[in-house]
């Protein structure tokens, strides 16, 4: 009799503790302020572990929406990618905790980091998995129809367009460094993602953007010296 009562009380207590814990977890997870996230992640022991678990849930809840344009959550590649991204994001968040300035929700900041990691990985995979044939198959393909082949353009318009393109091509050759020319051509010709182009050129995305930015300003200045503007050039191609 005593044993039976003891067992009942014990089960009751366990259930009570469990339900309290679940309530505590759902409340802390949904109502944690930025300060609470930071405090818990900087602490040790159970609060730290719980914060990490909650953050793992936050990341994994967001990734299907973040990646939906590129990868379905039904795809067999999805679960391992999510696991890899979650691990990497948690490590990076803990490492960069002091750089969070509180200008957004902490969870938005974390999603941002997860998205950067996930998209970088997806872009890398997409380009790595493209076969050599796929990358070179355009070599023997006929050139794209091109704007000069516009059947509605008059001979004068076609000649004018050809002349303008030649002028710009010459300016590109004269004004840009080989590295700037390579970057513009890679991105313009193959639509390679910025990160992949950067890797190909042994630099990083930000440095490549700066390189392109300088190139664009330089070209714009030179065009203006030749009394040309990008708008003039573009409008020449809009004429019928």
């Amino acid at each position, binding site marked *: 009799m005593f044993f039976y009562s003891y067992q009942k009380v014990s089960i009751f207590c366990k259930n009570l503790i469990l339900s309290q814990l679940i309530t505590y977890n759902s409340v802390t997870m949904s109502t944690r302020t930025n300060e609470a996230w930071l405090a818990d992640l900087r602490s040790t022991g159970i609060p730290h572990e719980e914060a990490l678990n909650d953050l793992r849930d936050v990341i994994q809840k967001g990734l299907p929406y973040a990646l939906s344009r590129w990868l379905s959550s039904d795809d067999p590649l999805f679960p391992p990618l999510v696991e890899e991204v979650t691990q990497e994001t948690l490590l990076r968040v803990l490492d960069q905790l002091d750089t969070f300035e509180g200008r957004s929700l902490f969870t938005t900041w974390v999603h941002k980091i997860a998205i950067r990691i996930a998209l970088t990985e997806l872009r890398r995979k997409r380009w790595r998995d493209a076969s050599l044939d796929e990358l070179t198959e355009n070599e023997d393909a006929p050139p794209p129809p091109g704007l000069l082949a516009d059947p509605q353009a008059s001979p004068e318009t076609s000649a004018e367009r050809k002349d303008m393109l030649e002028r710009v091509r010459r300016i590109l050759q004269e004004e840009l460094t080989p590295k700037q020319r390579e970057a513009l051509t890679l991105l313009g010709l193959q639509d390679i993602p910025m990160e992949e182009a950067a890797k190909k050129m042994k630099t990083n995305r930000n440095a490549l953007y700066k390189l392109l930015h300088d190139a664009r300003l330089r070209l714009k200045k030179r065009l203006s010296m030749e009394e040309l503007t*990008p708008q003039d050039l573009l409008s020449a191609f809009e004429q019928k």
Partner: protein
Amino acid sequence: MKLKDLFQNLFGKPAPQPEMTDEVVLKIINILERARADEITCDDMFMQLDEFVEHKFHGRDVEKIAPLLREHLDICNGCHEEYAALLSVLENTQNKN
């Protein structure tokens, strides 16, 4: 041996070199049209992306609040993809209150 030489040995023809076709030149002109001296970089964009997306999510006028960020998104595909992904996460996981 350089990759270019290896390619030439294996296939008996030079590695493909990107060339400035008319389409590439025109794309470059398109990009030039939007070039301005006070542009921000991808690192600047990333630093402010979370705050910027929250403004957008809450329906605030981001053109007025952060015009340079808005313009960067128009010309940088990589940053725009990250912006769209983050906005999608907020729209599907957060309340607007």
